[in-house]
């Protein structure tokens, strides 16, 4: 129940670069890209299967319409935010109708998690004159506890003999959240199950400004600046925070988390792409993001596509990500200490780094049919023994690694 906007990012990334980004395409033909992704975390955590099909057609005069359909199915267990204990722990499921017990010294995972999602999106890309281009998009994503509706527009202006392209755009997203069992009253005890039955809502406005510059015959560079403002329900209704005894560190009770009801994010993204004399392609990118929750992150991505003859390629890639913790992130709360107004023990808001290593092999069969296979391994690590741990908490892994295997198959064709 999270993704939704990925496709926005994917489709709109097209709009953030220049006219160069519009693939050559014959009229009266559809270019179809299809793929299926498997994402599986170790230790019985999240597993995802996500097929996608996207099609685009040139309506003439470089006017292109794109459609995309995404389906995904999620299963597995998800960390509920509570700390491990030397004693077994019992939790109420999000529905409030059942319980689950976590063994001593195990990371508390909610095993009841499952979700399916369907998302549609449509984009219309059209030149408005010789140097201007407009891209308008719409997307709808639905899962059983979350619905998202988005509209976006991106405009491009070519200058400097089409060697420089300026892009600017905006995205509006409206979300409705219907948590299973209702939205919990923030910071209340899990056992009380004090929940509101009505839907929660949130809206997000994104602004993006970008420049794409051709450097020479074989390389180009892109810089994007983004600003995002979100208002509304930002809390994860399924996440808990342990309140531990001040001497033993044993969990006494569990509170529902509470996050600020707004978030402003800014980022700068830069990408460089170069074709070598051998026709190999180097791509390097960097992103810096900061927000008013106190999160700062750096992301480095590097890939190199080796050409293996006319038809095949092999592309290793590596990505490194590092983030600081949100101001309100806590591993746990201590009984007797003042309750903060906002608190979350969601590991995704903690200080951590992550590395992805992968390889992709592909073939262009005849210029109209292509396939590729991508394999990746993801490892996320944080501080498992933070200095604030005491009592039994010093024996526990308070930030277990997340490892995941990613397998993706793509097939593209023209008809």
């Amino acid at each position, binding site marked *: 129940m999270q993704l939704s906007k990925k496709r926005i990012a994917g489709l709109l990334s097209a709009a953030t670069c220049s006219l160069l980004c519009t693939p050559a395409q014959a009229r009266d033909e559809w270019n179809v890209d299809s793929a299926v992704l498997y994402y599986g975390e170790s230790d019985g955590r999240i597993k995802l299967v996500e097929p996608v099909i996207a099609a685009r057609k040139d309506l003439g005069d470089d006017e292109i319409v794109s459609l995309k359909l995404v389906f995904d199915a999620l299963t597995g267990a998800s960390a509920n935010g509570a700390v491990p204990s030397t004693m077994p722990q019992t939790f109420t499921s999000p529905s409030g109708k059942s319980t689950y017990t976590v063994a001593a010294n195990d990371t508390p995972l909610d095993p009841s998690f499952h979700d399916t999602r369907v998302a549609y999106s449509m984009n219309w890309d059209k030149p408005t004159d010789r140097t201007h281009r407009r891209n308008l998009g719409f997307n709808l994503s639905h899962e059983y506890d979350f619905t998202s509706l988005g509209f976006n527009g991106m405009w491009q202006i070519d200058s400097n003999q089409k060697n420089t392209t300026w892009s600017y755009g905006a995205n509006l997203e409206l979300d409705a959240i219907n948590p299973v069992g209702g939205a919990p009253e923030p910071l209340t005890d899990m056992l009380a199950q004090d929940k509101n039955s009505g839907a929660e809502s949130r809206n997000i406005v994104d602004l993006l400004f970008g420049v794409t510059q051709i450097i020479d015959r074989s390389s180009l560079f892109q810089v994007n600046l983004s600003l995002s403002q979100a208002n509304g329900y930002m809390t994860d209704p399924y996440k808990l925070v342990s309140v531990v005894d001040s001497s033993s560190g044993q969990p006494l009770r569990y509170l529902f988390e509470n996050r600020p009801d707004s978030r402003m994010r800014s980022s700068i993204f830069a990408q460089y792409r170069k074709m070598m004399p051998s026709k190999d392609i180097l791509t390097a990118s960097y992103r810096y993001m900061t927000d008013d929750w106190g999160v700062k992150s750096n*992301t480095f991505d590097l890939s190199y596509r080796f050409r293996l003859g006319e038809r095949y390629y092999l592309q290793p890639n590596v990505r490194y990500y590092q983030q600081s913790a949100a101001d309100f992130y806590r591993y746990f709360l201590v009984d007797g200490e003042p309750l903060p107004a906002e608190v979350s023990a969601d590991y995704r808001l903690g200080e951590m780094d992550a590395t992805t290593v992968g390889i992709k092999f592909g073939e262009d069969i005849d210029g109209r049919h292509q396939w590729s296979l991508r394999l990746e391994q993801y490892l996320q690590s944080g501080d498992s023994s933070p200095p604030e741990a005491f009592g039994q908490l010093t024996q526990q892994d308070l930030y277990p690694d997340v490892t995941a295997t990613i397998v993706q198959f793509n097939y593209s064709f023209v008809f």
Partner: protein
Amino acid sequence: MKFTLRWLSICCLLALAGCSSLGVKPWERDLLARDDMLMNADALDLAYDEHIYFSKEASSGGQGFAGGGCGCN
């Protein structure tokens, strides 16, 4: 906001100062016109990556819009 304005100013200055001396003639675009040289080549890969990293980390967007999403697992 201050962060964005600062970088926006820097980028505009760099672009104005440097871009006019960069670039190619129209007949030199053969390599840049290839599909694999597009900045959004492998768009489905990018979309999948955004999905995965959005779900596991506190950052999103950059190349495209950040969006919101529920991020509940």
